[in-house]
C-alpha cells in the first residue's frame, strides 16, 4: 500500500522486456494494492497528466543550495545522466539521515493527493524547506519517483494498451470495454478505479467518453488481389484525428491522444451545438484553405493546437474545419457494429439534414469527407500519386463491410501513403556544422529501434528551418550525454520524420541498411521515442519496394 511498492513497480516495468511479464507484474500490483493507489498508478502510468511543480533546473539549483554543492558539478553529472530527477536522486544517495525516514509508509495516494498539492500552495522559501524535509524523510528508494513527479517527468515504457490488457485479464472482461472506460478524462479516485474494474457492463456509464479509435495499417500487397469495389477510398488528411461528440446536448472534442480540446477550438464547439441530434463522429481537424478547398499544411494547425481560448483574429487567420469520416453513434444508438457502407449512408443522410435544418450555417466549419472512386487498382495508384496536389498524404482504404472495432485491427483499414519511404526516427547524435552553420549543431544522426536498442540508420542535415535549427541546437546543448570531439551523443527524446529515395541492404552499416538522400521532413514533436519506427519497419519498406 505504499509509495515503495509503486517504486518497485516502476523498477520492474523499467527492466522487463516481455509484454506478458509486464502484464503479469501490473496485475499483481493491482491485486495487492488498494483501489485509490491503483487509480493513481493508472493515472501516472497512462501519462494522463503529470503536471510539473518545479522545473528540472529548479530542482538542481535547490539541491546545490541545500547541500552546498557546486552547480557546475551537477551540470557535468547531468550530461552523463540526461535527466534532472535522476541526477538529483543519484546525488542524494547517502546524503540524508536514514534514521529520520518517517515517511517510509507513505502511500501513493497520500503523496499525490496531499503532499504534492500542499507543496504547490507554499511560497518559494517554504517550498524549498519542505522539499528538503521530504528528501530527508522519504526512503531513498522513493526519491526517483518523488523527483520525477515533482518535475513532471514521470514516464515508463508502458502503453495504455498494456494497462488495458492487464485490467482486462484481472477481471476477465473484454479489452474493448476497458479501453473505452479508460478513454477521456480519468480522475484518480476509488470510484474511478471501481468503475474500471466493474464486472457489470453498463454502457450508460461510458456516456461522457469517446470510443476507442480504429486505426489504419500500412498497406499490404494482398489487398490488390481483392475487387476494388469492396473498398471505400478517402484522402488521407494530415491533421488531428478526432472524435466529435454531442451527447445530451453537450459537444466535446476528443483527440486520439485522448485529450479534450474544446478550449482550443471554441468556434467548432459553438457551431456544432446548434445541431439538433446527438451523435459521435470520427474525423479529422484541419486548418482549411476555403478558397482552394484543400487543407493547409500541418504547421498552421500547430499554431492552433496549443493555444487555449484563441482570439477572433487567430480564428480568422487559421480557419479550421472538421471533416467527418464516419458516424459511430446517433441519438444514443451505438452503430459501430453495422457495416461501413451503411454507416456512410447514415452519415450522408444526417449531414444533409443538418445542413438544411440547422439554423446557423455549419458548412463553413464542418463537412463530410469526399469519397474517391478509382476504376481499378492502377487508377487508385494514380489518385495516390496525385495526393500531394491537394495536400493530403495519400489514401485511406476501408473495407466496405468493416465494423468499427478498436485499435490497429488488421485487414480492414489501410493507409496508402504517397511517399512510403519515410520513417520516424530518433535523434541520437549531433555534430557541429561548418561555414554558415558554424557554432550550431546541424548534422544529425538518427536511429531506429531494434528491440530495446536504438540503432543508427541515417544521417541528415537538411530539412529544418533556421528557427527549428536554433531551437534544436539549444535542446542539443542541454541534452548531451557524452561528447566525443565535435560529436555529441544525445538523450533519446526527439523524433523526426526522415524521408529518403532509396533503401537497400548494406554491410557497411550496423543497421544493415543504407538510404539515399535522407532528409528531415518533419519534427515530430507530437511523438515520443517509443512511437519511432523500428529496423523491422525499414526492412518491410525495403521488401515492399523491391
Amino acid at each position, binding site marked *: 500500500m505504499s509509495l515503495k511498492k509503486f517504486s518497485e513497480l516502476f523498477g520492474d516495468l523499467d527492466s522487463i*522486456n516481455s509484454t506478458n511479464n509486464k502484464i503479469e507484474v501490473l496485475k499483481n500490483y493491482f491485486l495487492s494494492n488498494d483501489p485509490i493507489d491503483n487509480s493513481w498508478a493508472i493515472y501516472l502510468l497512462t501519462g494522463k497528466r503529470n503536471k510539473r511543480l518545479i522545473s528540472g533546473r529548479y530542482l538542481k539549483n535547490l539541491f546545490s543550495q541545500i547541500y552546498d554543492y557546486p552547480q557546475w558539478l551537477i551540470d*557535468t553529472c547531468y550530461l552523463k545522466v540526461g535527466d534532472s530527477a535522476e541526477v538529483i536522486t*543519484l546525488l542524494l544517495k547517502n546524503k540524508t539521515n536514514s534514521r529520520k525516514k518517517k515517511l517510509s509508509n507513505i502511500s501513493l495516494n497520500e503523496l499525490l493527493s496531499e503532499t504534492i498539492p500542499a507543496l504547490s500552495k507554499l511560497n518559494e522559501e517554504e517550498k524549498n524547506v519542505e522539499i528538503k524535509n521530504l528528501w530527508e524523510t522519504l526512503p531513498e528508494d522513493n526519491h526517483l519517483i518523488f523527483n520525477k513527479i515533482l518535475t513532471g517527468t514521470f514516464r515508463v515504457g508502458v502503453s495504455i494498451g498494456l494497462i488495458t490488457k492487464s485490467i482486462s485479464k484481472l477481471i476477465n472482461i473484454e479489452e474493448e470495454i476497458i479501453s473505452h472506460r479508460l478513454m477521456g478524462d480519468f480522475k484518480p479516485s476509488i470510484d474511478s478505479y471501481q468503475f474500471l474494474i466493474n464486472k457489470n457492463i453498463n454502457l450508460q456509464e461510458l456516456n461522457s467518453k469517446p470510443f476507442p479509435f480504429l486505426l489504419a495499417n500500412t498497406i499490404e500487397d494482398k489487398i490488390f488481389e481483392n475487387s476494388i469495389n469492396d473498398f471505400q477510398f478517402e484522402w488521407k488528411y494530415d491533421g488531428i484525428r478526432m472524435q466529435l461528440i454531442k451527447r445530451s446536448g453537450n459537444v466535446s472534442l476528443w483527440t486520439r491522444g485522448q485529450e479534450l480540446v474544446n478550449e482550443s477550438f471554441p468556434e467548432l464547439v459553438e457551431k456544432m451545438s446548434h445541431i439538433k441530434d446527438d451523435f459521435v463522429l470520427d474525423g479529422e481537424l484541419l486548418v482549411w484553405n476555403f478558397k482552394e478547398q484543400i487543407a493547409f499544411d500541418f504547421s498552421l494547425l500547430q499554431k492552433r493546437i496549443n493555444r487555449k481560448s484563441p482570439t477572433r483574429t487567430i480564428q480568422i487567420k487559421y480557419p479550421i474545419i472538421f471533416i467527418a469520416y464516419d458516424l459511430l453513434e446517433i441519438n444514443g444508438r451505438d452503430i459501430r457494429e453495422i457495416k461501413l457502407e451503411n454507416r456512410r449512408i447514415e452519415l450522408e443522410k444526417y449531414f444533409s439534414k443538418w445542413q438544411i435544418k440547422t439554423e446557423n450555417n455549419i458548412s463553413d466549419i464542418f463537412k463530410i469527407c469526399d469519397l474517391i472512386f478509382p476504376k481499378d487498382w492502377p487508377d487508385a495508384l494514380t489518385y495516390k500519386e496525385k495526393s500531394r496536389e491537394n495536400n493530403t498524404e495519400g489514401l485511406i482504404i476501408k473495407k466496405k463491410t468493416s465494423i468499427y472495432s478498436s485499435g490497429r485491427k488488421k485487414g480492414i483499414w489501410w493507409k496508402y501513403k504517397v511517399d512510403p519511404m519515410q520513417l520516424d526516427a530518433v535523434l541520437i547524435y549531433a555534430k557541429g556544422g561548418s561555414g554558415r552553420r558554424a557554432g550550431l549543431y546541424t548534422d544529425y544522426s538518427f536511429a531506429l529501434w531494434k528491440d*530495446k536498442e536504438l540503432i543508427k540508420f541515417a544521417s541528415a542535415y537538411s530539412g529544418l528551418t533556421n528557427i527549428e535549427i536554433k531551437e534544436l541546437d539549444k535542446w542539443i546543448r542541454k541534452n548531451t550525454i557524452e561528447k566525443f570531439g565535435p560529436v555529441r551523443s544525445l538523450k533519446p527524446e526527439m523524433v523526426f520524420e526522415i524521408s529518403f529515395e532509396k533503401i537497400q541492404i548494406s554491410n557497411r552499416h550496423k543497421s544493415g541498411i543504407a538510404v539515399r538522400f535522407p532528409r528531415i521532413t518533419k519534427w515530430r514533436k507530437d511523438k515520443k521515442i517509443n512511437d519511432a519506427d523500428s529496423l523491422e519497419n525499414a526492412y518491410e519498406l525495403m521488401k515492399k519496394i523491391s
Partner: protein
Amino acid sequence: MRTKQEYLIRYKDGNLYCELADIWIDPSKPVKKALITHAHFDHFTFGCEEYISTKETAILLKERVGDNIKIKTFEYGEEFKINGINISFHPSGHILGSSQIRFIFAEEKWLISGDFKLQKDQTCKPYEIVKTDYLISECTFGLPIFKWDESNKIANDISKWITNSPEKTSLLFCYSLGKAQRLLNEISQTNFKGNIYSHGSIHKMNNSYREIGIDIKDTIKIENKKKIDELKGSLILLPPSLSKGSYLKNFKNIQTAFASGWMSIRALRKRSGYDKGFAISDHADWDGILEVVKKSEAKNVFFHHGDSEALSKYLVEKESINVLLFGK
C-alpha cells in the same frame, strides 16, 4: 615547478613510463620491462621482454596467455631496486593480485594506484592506504553520481531477480576475471541455492583462484547443448562479449543482466540492451577516489583512465589539492 620531462613518472606514447628505471607500467605495446598492476587484458600486452608483477597476478597471467612469458614476481610490500629506485607492490583491492605500485627515489614518493576499490571483496586483499607525495590515480567513475551499494545488497538483488523468475534461465554477464569470482562469492551467501553455471573462460579463472587459495563456489561449466529444462531457474555467468552474437540462441526463455558500475545510470541501462543492470564495480566510486586521494596525503595528483575534468576541478576548488595534467 618541474617540467613534465623531469617527473619521475610521466606519460610517454600514451603509457606510464619511468625513464630513470627505463620501465613501463601496464604498457599497451611491447617494451623491454613492464610492471603489471593486474591481469586484466587492458593492462597487459604480449611481447614484452620482461614482466614484473605480484605472484598472484603472474599466475593469472600465465593461465590466460600461457607459460612462455618471462615474469619476475614479488610479494606485496616487498621492496626491490631498479637503477636506485625502490619499488614495491601494495594491494589495491581491485581483483586477486591487483596492486598499487610505489616508487621511492631521492626521498620522493610516487604511487600508481592501479585499478582499485575500497569496497569489501572476499576474493582479494583489501586496499592498503599508502602514503605518497605524488599520486597517479585512475578515475573511471570520477563523478559523484557513482556511489556503490554494499555488495551483499547487490547480491541479494541478483538472488531475488533469479528466484522471482523460476521459469527462466538467468544469464548474468560480467567480466570473467575478478567480477565473476566476487559475484560467485557474494551470491553463494544469499538465499539463492539453485545451480550456477559458468562459461569456460570464467570456469578457468575460478580454478586459478582456488589454486591460489581463494575459496570460490563450485560451478558447472556450461556446455552448448544443455537441456532447457535443466537450466530453468538456474544462474549462468557469461562474459559480456557473448551478449551480442548468436551465442544466446543456445538458450530458451532467458532473462539477461549486466553487472557493471555503469548500470547505475538508467539511460545506460536502457541502452545496454540487457533486461536488467546491477550496479556493482571493482573500481572505486566518487567517495572512494576522494578518500584515497586524501588518505594518501599526496600533495600532487594526476588522473588517468577516465573523465577527470570534474574530479580535478572539485579537488582544486573544494579540497585545495594540486591536480596536475599529464602531457599525453
